[in-house]
């Protein structure tokens, strides 16, 4: 399975639909402080089902929607899509290309989508079961958090370890 694309629309500092294409190798994302790099990481966590706004650096989930700037009004909706190449059938579905999406509206209404079909978070979790992808896996190491396993006490460390393994 290959992660082909991450698409952000109205998510945090990305009011305009923005696509990042990834290949099989190493992709680096660079830019000045505050330009939005970590927001892309938050977007990936969010679309994979992150439930804690705090873990996305916000106070409430509404903080994920573009809040406006001196030159733009705020967005009405935040959406993130992950597009996977599933030709090796890692994901137990028919399609060779799988899109996982999450939307949140100002009204508070929120939904998950699998190939544009509304689904539940439960379905997203089941899709990724045992693939090494998910909010509890080690696939996302946030800024300042690389040594979290070292800083934890033996019991916390064990819980983190269990979740991933």
């Amino acid at each position, binding site marked *: *399975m*290959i*992660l082909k694309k991450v698409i952000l629309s109205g998510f*945090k*500092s*990305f*009011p*305009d639909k*923005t*696509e*990042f*294409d*990834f*290949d*099989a*190798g*190493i*992709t*680096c*994302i*660079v*830019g*000045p402080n*505050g*330009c*939005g*790099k*970590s*927001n*892309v*990481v938050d977007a990936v966590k969010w679309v994979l089902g992150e439930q804690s706004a705090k873990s996305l650096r916000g106070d409430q989930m509404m903080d994920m929607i573009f809040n*406006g*700037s*001196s*030159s*733009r009004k705020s967005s009405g909706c935040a959406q993130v899509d992950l597009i996977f190449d599933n030709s090796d059938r890692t994901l137990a579905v028919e399609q060779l290309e799988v899109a996982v999406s999450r939307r949140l509206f100002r009204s508070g209404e929120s939904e998950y989508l699998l190939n544009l079909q509304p689904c539940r978070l439960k379905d997203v979790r089941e899709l990724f079961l045992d*693939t*090494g*992808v998910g909010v509890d*896996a*080690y*696939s*996302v*190491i*946030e*800024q*300042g*958090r*690389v*040594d979290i*396993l*070292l800083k934890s*006490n*033996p*019991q916390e*460390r*064990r819980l983190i*370890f269990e979740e*991933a*393994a």
Partner: protein
Amino acid sequence: SRERFAAIFQQVRDHFQQMFRKLFGGGKADLVLDPTCPDILEAGIEILAKPPGKELQAISLMSGGEKTMTAIALLMSIFRAKPSPFVFLDEVDAALDEANNERFNAIVREFLDQSQFIIITHSKRTMQVAGTLYGITMQEPGVSRRVSVRFEQNRDEVASAVA
């Protein structure tokens, strides 16, 4: 289940012992389940790390860069036992000196057989190993935009443009 946990733990432990020595050019490290706890599903996990030439001490006494390298060794060991198809790393190289930054780059390359890596960094050294480089800019106040660059052409250009 107990067997499953014990199996994965042992794999991660074996990898960690080797990975640490590889990243530190020597020394010794281990992952240990709390021996005072009878049930391995309850036992806390202890990390022991002894950089080359130094004595074994509490990992709290290690330096910022040494802790990052130890954490990377542990992370990569978990990946060997339980691969992730893609990995996002956000400025994990912040505390590393140039030599360790190179070792980090080298270990990431070794894992390309099992994972894609998306690395956020300010380090020009880390940027060197990228096959693809994306810049993010905020020309319009508060609005992020992506600038994409194929590395072979203008690596230094985008690196300086976005720094």
